[in-house]
């Protein structure tokens, strides 16, 4: 690798426009007039909500537009070459060698039938840059640099034999095989747990610094971007909103939208929300819990062979929120499924308002079913794509309350109003709604049953920070108005702290810490809670560098 001039411009994008093309060859602009440049060794972040065109821009830098899209104006200069004027064969020659791409979901991007080494070294070998032996050596040194365990042998494994965070780092190794001048990282940590995210972020940062590579970092979370980027391009609806150095953007945002992004970032709230007093019943005594989960053990497979919950106990109160936090595999979703009756317990019990609940759904009566509703994580797949919103919201009304059609229509309009959607949406199909709107419909469906408890399973995880923030505000507002209680499941402790009155921290199927929010948040913390707390990036550029905790550096 030749030493590069520090001031050399690696990538220059001028007036880039990308449009979607329908069958009648009409164009609908996706991205309009984008200009930015990246100097050697610098990282530029593209930030914005989904649909803002960040992935489209990053793909256009490879000279690529997705099926149905065309790049209709502008130039993308890599060094002195305009990528857009090259033939397909010429573009193919630069991809992988000069520009490399790291996709959002490494799990989906790797071929599960080939060993990791084979996939990591493939580009370099078929392009004739390295021989297989050289490539293997190079791969091992990259694995070492990325802090992967057992760098000598990890390449012989298959994708399913490594964790999600490791896979994401292996993807980085794949991208770095030919020492590209430009690295494009498309939301590389979004699908990861918070603690893993930090590890991966650290490895990426180290790698970019060591190799003096330029990079485009695509993300919707400004707090994450602050740790790695030098410059930020804020996008909204395919247009540039603001461009500047990361320090400037964070300390002195000019545009309203940038301020909104900063507000919505997943950072720790500066102070805990006001703790609400426990409820009292009519006689002035402390109210009894609405839901009691008592020493529940449950698992998957025949006769609960693979346990996902060990001896879990917790209580939820009326019009209060209990937050359940943990990484993937901690059993938090399983807990939600057990409470809703989708899964049966091995031992232990679940009781609602003092009455024990049967663990099989078909043995619960309609009233019990109505009292507990489930809001799913992915609103995309939780709403039947063939049903109009009127039917999606109307069915629980017909099912639980036996309302006549007229009353249902009226109630559907009320429900839409409750979740701040226009009444005309009743006639739409789910695919005609945005992600945030779908999540609102998802909530409205749960509310339709007038439940006592809604299990919210990561309902904001798939959403952009700004949209997620509005959903959280809606949830709080609904709780104040309707007195519904939430079991709020999330992997993001900053969200949980903003929402919950009590918190249960779960790890490997056990509750490791349980108490009211102030109790859990006051030191001393359980070591795992501490780890989670440490993993929430702060809106400062030096946060990651200052992170001295050894927990992350040696994993």
């Amino acid at each position: 690798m030749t030493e590069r001039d520090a001031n050399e411009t690696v990538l220059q994008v001028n007036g880039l426009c990308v449009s979607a093309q329908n069958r009648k060859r009409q164009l609908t602009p996706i991205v309009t007039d984008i200009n930015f440049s990246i100097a050697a060794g610098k990282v530029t972040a593209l930030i914005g909500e989904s649909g803002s065109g960040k992935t489209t821009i990053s793909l256009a830098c490879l000279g690529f537009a997705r099926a149905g899209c065309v790049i209709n104006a502008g130039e993308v200069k890599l060094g002195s070459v305009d990528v857009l004027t090259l033939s397909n064969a010429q573009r193919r020659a630069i991809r992988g060698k000069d520009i490399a791409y790291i996709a959002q979901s490494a799990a989906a991007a790797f071929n599960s039938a080939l060993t990791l080494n084979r996939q990591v070294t493939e580009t370099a070998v078929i392009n004739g840059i390295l021989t297989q032996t050289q490539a293997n050596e190079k791969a091992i040194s990259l694995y070492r640099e990325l802090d992967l365990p057992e760098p000598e042998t990890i390449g012989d494994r298959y994708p399913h034999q490594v964790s999600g965070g490791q896979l994401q780092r292996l993807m980085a190794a794949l991208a770095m095989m030919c020492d590209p001048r430009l690295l494009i990282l498309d939301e590389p940590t979004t699908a990861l747990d918070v603690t893993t995210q930090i590890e991966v972020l650290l490895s990426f940062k180290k790698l970019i610094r060591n190799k003096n590579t330029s990079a485009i970092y695509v993300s919707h979370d400004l707090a994450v971007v602050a740790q790695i980027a030098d410059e930020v391009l804020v996008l909204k609806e395919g247009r540039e909103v603001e461009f500047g150095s990361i320090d400037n953007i964070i300390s002195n945002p000019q545009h309203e939208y940038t301020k909104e992004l900063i507000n919505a970032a997943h950072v720790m709230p500066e102070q805990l929300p006001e703790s609400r007093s426990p409820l009292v019943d009519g006689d002035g005594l402390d109210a009894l819990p609405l839901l009691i989960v008592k020493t529940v053990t449950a698992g998957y497979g025949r006769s609960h062979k693979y346990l996902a919950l060990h001896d879990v106990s917790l209580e939820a109160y009326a019009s209060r929120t209990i937050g359940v936090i943990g990484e993937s595999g901690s059993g938090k979703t399983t807990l939600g499924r057990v409470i809703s009756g989708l899964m049966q317990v091995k031992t232990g019990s679940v009781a609602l308002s003092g009455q024990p609940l049967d663990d099989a759904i078909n043995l619960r009566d309609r009233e019990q079913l109505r009292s507990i509703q489930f809001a799913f994580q992915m609103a995309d797949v939780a709403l039947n794509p063939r049903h109009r919103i009127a039917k999606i919201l109307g069915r629980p009304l017909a099912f639980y309350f036996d309302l006549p059609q007229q009353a249902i229509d009226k109630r559907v309009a009320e429900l839409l109003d409750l979740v701040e959607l226009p009444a005309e949406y009743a006639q739409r199909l789910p695919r005609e709604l945005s992600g945030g709107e779908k999540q609102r419909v998802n909530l409205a469906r749960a509310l339709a049953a007038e439940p006592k408890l809604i299990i919210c399973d990561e309902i904001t995880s798939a959403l952009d920070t700004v949209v997620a923030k509005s959903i959280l505000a809606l949830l709080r507002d609904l709780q104040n108005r309707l007195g519904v209680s939430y079991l709020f499941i999330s992997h993001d402790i900053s969200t949980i702290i903003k929402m919950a009155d009590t918190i249960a921290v779960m790890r490997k199927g056990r509750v490791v810490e349980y108490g009211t929010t102030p109790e859990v948040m006051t030191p001393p913390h359980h070591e795992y809670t501490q780890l989670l707390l440490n993993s929430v990036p702060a809106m400062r550029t030096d946060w990651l560098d200052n992170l001295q905790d050894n927990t992350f550096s040696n994993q």
Partner: protein
Amino acid sequence: MKTAVPKVDNALPASGFKYLLSQLTLTPILCLLVLTGVLIVVLFAPLLAPHPEAAILTDESFSLPDDTMLLGSDFLGRDVLSRLLFGARVTLSVAFAIAIVAFILGCSLGFFAAVKRGWVDSVLSRSVDALISFPAIMVALIVISSLGSSITVLIVTIALIDATRVYRVARALGMDIVVQDYIEAARVRGEKMGWIIWHEMLPNALAPLAAEFGIRFTYAILFISALSFLGLGVQAPQADLGVMVKENMQGLLYETYTPLYPAVCIAIVTLSVNLLVDWFLKTTDAALPDEL
């Protein structure tokens, strides 16, 4: 991240039917015309046919077309055109009945297996595998020769054989749908299985099932024609396209086209249905957004 879905009106059709109409090209229009003609024949054959089905009008076998008999006479001196109209009516309505029965049976069992999983699925699927492992024509021959040939036996036997194929498709589709969160949501609500299958699953499997229906229908036409040709299907003197090919086979020796008319009929109808199904699948596939 998802790319912005452009708000182009015809990309996201409000009504599936309108969208289909907008996508009509020459081939599907021709196929639709042919099938409309066929439908008219099936419904009104007795009114359209110039002569009764079994009337012997001349003692000359394989006479050439003339004014009274537009397509000439068959081996017994009956009017080929009239028999063709009556034969198409029998063949197509029986084929349609077979496809319907096969579908109701195959879809309900397939979805049932997909929802129930476990031993129910195993028992059903293995029984179906066992049935599939016999050559279809052999099963049909055995059943029909032991029970005797009648329209009812024909329909039930072939429908059963076809249902195994439909079952496979429906189960595979169902398996994909049943793991979706909206099915889970219906379960949490406490919905009964019938409602889940009918309201939540079926609408999402409709396009591929409709296509499968077309394919099953053509196979049914070919299957009855084959059975009739072997003498086990529709019995003389009733006309049927397969029977007509068989009866008039010797006509080929006298250089007449008589046995070719019913054969061409079969070919045109099956081809039209097949092309229409292909077009339908292609258009509905393109209309589905990627994230579905």
